[in-house]
């Protein structure tokens, strides 16, 4: 029997509900996570099942409740913190970077911080510069943190369950535009290990390494390329750390051409790191320099025609891939 299809948001909710049933230490902490179920309604129904002690509404106080989650994780709970918009992670930086990421190492392995921070990324929602950024590169830079970027409902459920069971602080970025995306998701319990890439589509001529919101863009571009006789492979790292370098390098060696796609800023960003990994690991098998595509280096503008040009699209990826494979 084929799996039923549910949305990305439902997959996230199902993962949380299953983990909260399995482990009474798992709790949710954040702004409007209880009765409101968050502005995206991702958490609807959870407070009704698990009660206000485990689905905890907070004041608008990101640094405060993230710090509380760090301490609670060190002393017996497994908190899942909800940061409504990825732009607000700026407010939690000391707690995540100086506290959560370092407590295990600084204590010589004595303390652990098994917590998850769920937050969002992605532009094109007409939300302007402070509600549209993709800042996952910042956390990917810090030793001690793990960073997860699910791109399908199936991955969202399996990766979130793995993140909750992980003994380390894990930051889980959800693409806001993907919450209504439907896909097959098993009803049973499963996890996807952190650090294992997924080949979302096999191909021979070019590798499109894509994360989160860019996976659907890459898959769309691959269909356009197929019509031109170009076979594109789409590889989704699924986590920026730990990073499955081998799968990226193997695919790059096979196809010999690579575009790396990520909605964060390119400058000093995720695409730079992935491109460097590929260049170091597959240099002698490449027929062209690795190309990077990401958000333009501007604050995300509000005006729709301006915002739309700031992020890669199926068409711009198609154009770039075609020119790499068939130089005119």
């Amino acid at each position, binding site marked *: 029997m084929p799996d039923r299809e549910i949305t990305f948001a439902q997959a996230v909710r199902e993962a949380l509900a299953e983990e909260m049933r399995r482990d009474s230490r798992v709790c949710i902490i954040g702004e409007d996570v209880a009765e409101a179920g968050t502005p995206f309604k991702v958490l609807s129904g959870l407070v009704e099942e698990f009660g206000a*002690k485990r689905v905890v509404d907070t004041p608008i106080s990101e*640094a405060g409740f993230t710090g509380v989650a760090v*301490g609670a994780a*060190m*002393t017996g*709970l497994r908190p899942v913190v909800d940061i409504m918009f990825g732009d607000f992670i700026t407010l939690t930086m000391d707690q995540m970077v100086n506290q959560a990421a370092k*407590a295990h190492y600084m204590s*010589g392995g004595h303390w652990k911080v098994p917590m998850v921070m769920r937050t969002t990324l992605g532009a094109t929602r007409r939300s302007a510069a402070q509600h549209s950024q993709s800042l996952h590169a910042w956390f990917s830079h810090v030793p001690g943190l793990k960073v997860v970027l699910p791109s399908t409902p199936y991955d969202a459920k399996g990766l979130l369950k793995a993140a909750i069971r992980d*003994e380390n602080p894990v930051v889980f970025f959800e693409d806001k535009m993907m919450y209504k995306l439907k896909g097959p998701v098993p009803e049973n319990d499963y996890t996807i290990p952190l650090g294992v890439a997924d080949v979302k589509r096999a191909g021979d001529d070019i590798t499109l390494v894509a994360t989160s919101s860019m996976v659907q863009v890459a898959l769309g571009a691959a269909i356009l390329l197929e019509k031109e006789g170009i076979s594109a492979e789409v590889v989704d790292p699924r986590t920026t750390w730990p990073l499955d370098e081998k799968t990226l390098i193997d695919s790059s060696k096979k196809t010999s051409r690579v575009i790396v796609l990520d909605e964060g800023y390119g400058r000093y960003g995720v695409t730079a790191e992935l491109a460097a990994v590929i260049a170091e690991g597959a240099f002698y098998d490449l027929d062209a320099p690795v190309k990077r595509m990401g958000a333009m280096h501007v604050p995300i503008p509000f005006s729709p025609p301006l915002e739309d040009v700031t992020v890669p699209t199926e068409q711009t990826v198609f154009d770039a891939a075609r020119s790499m494979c068939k130089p005119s």
Partner: protein
Amino acid sequence: MTTVTSKPGVGHEAGTEKEKWLHAYRQMVSIRLFEEQVNEVYTRALMPGLAHLYSGEEAVAVGICEALRIDDYITSTHRGHGHCLAKGASPDRMFAELLGKEAGYCRGKGGSMHIADPATGNLGANAIVGGSVGIATGAAFAAKNLGADRVAVCFFGEGALGQGSLYEVMNLAQLWKLPVIYVCENNLYNEYTHYTETTAGTILGRAAAFGIETASVDGQDVRAVNEVAERLVKRSRAGGGPAFLQCDTYRYGGHHVGDINREYYRSKQEEQQWKTERDPILVLAKWLIDRGYADAAFLDGIRNEIRATMEAAVKFAIAAPYPSVDEVEKHVYA
């Protein structure tokens, strides 16, 4: 491993008043002599990095930790040696940590500003001013959520009053009635700046604005600190919610060991006055002698015994091996 004294918080419960305060005396002398050794080791260039000494503030850590159980939590600061010792850490493993040795509490990876010890409920010293306020409040959140009757004490200096995260977590703690006690050690100086130049309004007024139970105490009088701490801990443990305790105290040395020329921010006369008139160890010694619980020779004996222990601890740490270089990538992830 050498130990200095019995575990904190258990010595006095079944004992007499005399035993209780002799124990507190030993704890304060231990901190003072530990820090004297740190100064010595640092001055001899045997210690890498920074050292922020707790000398002068001993009555705060001891008065409060004597009101705690071994399984209660504390968070500490860059000036944290006193908190660690008062909560029951052993000086030899502390010195080993200060010298970056594998036998240290953090296998040498934390150093002076990051000593952590789960066995004594020490969640860790923190080198970000105000950096541990969330962790302490979170430990209280977990204790309440898990139905444990533990309390968490968050030590911080008055310099942390400038950090916004303190006000965020005090709001949460009072909303949720968490068993956390915020202990503000007002040693008068934010590094090299008098606190009145950095602090508008009053210290207690900050916590009172959230409806949090507040108290202030002479931080040089260990018996006074302990009396108010016992009351606040009992109240929090019973579900009464958070409290904020201001302890007025004084940092004898500089901001760190290398801060030697201090006249541009405070006078030698001021320093001398605190040391001679309000020294917490002298204050308790006088009380012990007046009560007939000890005489000067007996207290000298205690000091000599503890000095020998500290010297042995330093020797242990100097002789202890550094961690293997293989250790560098261990414990990044659990």
